[in-house]
């Protein structure tokens, strides 16, 4: 039997954890998938906390040092583990109050990116906070990991931008190419979502076959029972789509994720990133 995939919500101890949990619970309820709350403990073994600068080594220096470091790290880890456990349990209760069907929690050692890649096999959807613990310090728009993660894992990622608002309409940033056609197909495959009206918006340079592409998207979604509205907005995609989100009061943006060539995006910049940065609503990025 195929193991049922799950929704994996990555939380850290920041205000975003609650938003992530709320959106994850919403997605779990909508898609009737089990939800797992993942808290990653990065042990930072590369950082030390020594105050001993005596530089003297005596009898059994090595053994004593090993014992001392093991002891210290053990104590520290136990504290972090316990704090994480309490934190995760709080979130679990929050999710269960939001009627998510089955909520599990897990703490793992490691680094965010590696851990998410390892879990990929069993995951249907990742839910991440746009900013995390580090946001206060770095003041960057995107949590430092989000971009890297969406490059590495081949699963849809829901990036949460702020407090939970029950999505009432979704907007697909569409360009008729393979990646965004896949977005449309993926939405169409989940008829459970069809109580949410979908806007399919094309933008960019004037394309002659835009109508044809939009027609295809409309048909695909209509067949799955969605209410669809399509539009073609010529101009700068970033601006037009951001405006469209505002005008149509969309609560969820769906778009194709980063192209696979990091070189290309290094030179040209990444459109995905621009959009992700500009968008004030939660965003689902989808890979091929």
């Amino acid at each position, binding site marked *: 039997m195929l193991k049922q995939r799950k929704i994996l919500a990555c939380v850290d101890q920041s205000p975003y954890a609650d938003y992530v949990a709320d959106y994850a619970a919403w997605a779990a309820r909508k898609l009737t998938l089990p939800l797992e709350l993942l808290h990653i403990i990065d042990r930072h073994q590369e950082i030390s906390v020594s105050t001993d600068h*005596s530089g003297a080594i005596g009898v059994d220096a090595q053994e004593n040092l090993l014992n001392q470091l093991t002891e210290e790290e053990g104590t520290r880890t136990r504290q972090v583990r316990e704090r994480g456990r309490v934190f995760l349990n709080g979130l679990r209760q929050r999710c269960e109050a939001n009627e998510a069907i089955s909520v599990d929690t897990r703490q793992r050692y490691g680094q965010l990116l590696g851990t998410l890649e390892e879990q990929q096999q069993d995951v249907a959807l990742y839910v991440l906070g746009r900013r995390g613990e580090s946001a206060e310090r770095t003041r960057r728009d995107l949590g430092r990991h989000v971009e890297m993660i969406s490059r590495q894992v081949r699963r849809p990622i829901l990036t949460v931008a702020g407090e939970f608002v029950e999505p009432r309409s979704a907007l697909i940033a569409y360009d008729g190419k393979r990646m965004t056609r896949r977005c449309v197909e993926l939405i169409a495959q989940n008829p459970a979502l069809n109580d949410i009206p979908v806007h399919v918006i094309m933008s960019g340079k004037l394309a002659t076959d835009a109508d044809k592409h939009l027609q295809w998207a409309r048909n695909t979604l209509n067949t799955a029972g969605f209410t669809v509205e399509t539009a073609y907005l010529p101009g700068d995609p970033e601006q037009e789509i951001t405006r469209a989100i505002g005008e149509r009061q969309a609560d969820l943006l769906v778009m194709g994720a980063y192209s696979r060539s990091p070189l290309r995006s290094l030179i040209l910049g990444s459109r995905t990133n621009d959009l992700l940065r500009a968008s004030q609503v939660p965003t689902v990025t989808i890979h091929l």
Partner: protein
Amino acid sequence: MNTIRQEWFSNIRSDLLAGLVVALALIPEAIAFSIIAGVDPKVGLYASFCIAVVIAFTGGRPGMISAATGAMALLMVTLVKDHGLEYLFAATVLTGVLQIIAGWIRLGELMRFVSRSVVTGFVNALAILIFMAQLPELIDVPWPVYVMTAAGLGIIYGLPLLTKAVPSPLIAIIVLTVISVTVGIDVRTVGDMGDLPTTPPVLLVPNLPLTLETLSVIFPYSLTLMVVGLLESLMTATIVDDLTDTNSDKSRECVGQGVANIASGFMGGMAGCAMIGQSVINIKSGGRGRLSTLSAGIFLLALLMFLGDWVSRIPMAALVAVMIMVSVGTFNWDSIRNLRSHPASSSMVMIVTVMVTVSTHDLAQGVLSGVLLSGFFFAHKVGRILSISSRSEDEGRTRNYTILGQVFFASADRFVQSFDFQEVIEAVRIDVSRAHFWDITAVSALDKVVMKFRREGTEVEVLGLNEASATMVDRFALHDKDEPADLLLPH
């Protein structure tokens, strides 16, 4: 990018502080090891600077300290004495080249044949050698030297009980230097031992003819230096791995040591490797990243440039005290306590490693004897896993021998002796399907048994030889037979 940040800049404050502590301890050590090798202190100091700085970038184990070491210095004594300094530089460069090759062909994986007991023996021998190297400074010297050495040790071990904020070896050196200068005690000082560096090192191509003759002089030295350097570096890397609970890239470390030694050779330095004592000090002081190693090297040179005059006035007694501390801290005292509880063979391996090293002053020979001896003991032990049972069948006409266990060079004799050739019998059946024949010795032992029986006019039938001799193939054909775990078990 992430690893660069993690290995360099994630622990900046602690790394810099630890680097300073290490640099202060490196100065006396580098001077002491230069004296062991019979060269000017500046050779060891330049080497320590170059190696520490280069290995910070090229090494595979962040947070490990490499510099001029005693283990290496001991190997150069005759080269320097017989041929001179230029040959030492050339040998250092060649050592580096050999180490790079060793890294590329992953020679480091051979470390798995070096057992725990050999490692302990290596470490103990190193500590003993470092201590013995101090004896010339303690024998036949005026009495103030003993007082100063004792006072130095008192400060080194006493001060940390009061404060751990300052390096106690440094305080010991400062106090002893100030006292000996102001009181005017007439003892030997570092300045008496030879030149100290006054400028940063400059590029210096060894002034030697590139001939086979030169090569034949330096190659044996470089080969031993390569082996000992890598051994100590890889052992130290494992120690640092354990202490920090992280992994290191051993092959990169081999290549890195090579690059560092080449740099040292071209900068007027001697060959070096990782240092167990210094690395422990570094970790203890909070050093974890590459920055700690780099800063140790840079602080070392900066201190020498600023304090050059003062360094030459440090009394040798102060250095001796620091080196005794290093020796005590390096020695594995547990191994003495464990002598009774550990198996005699392990203790024997450890002791032989120590004894061979101390008598030859060559850690390579010590390790080689240790490895050979542990292999010998292992073969002996596994050779005992062999049992042969027999019963007569067919109303006394036939005897069935069943062989169980390992047959190889160490057990082949016992295998042959287990058969009763005096028995008057028509036929013998030898069932080897549950035994393993590991080598040619085992097969010829079986041949011998068969021939002996035939000579008595006895029919011989061997059962299951195919299964038994599958282990002889160097690459085990595991797919149609056992899991590795089953190989040592009877079928």
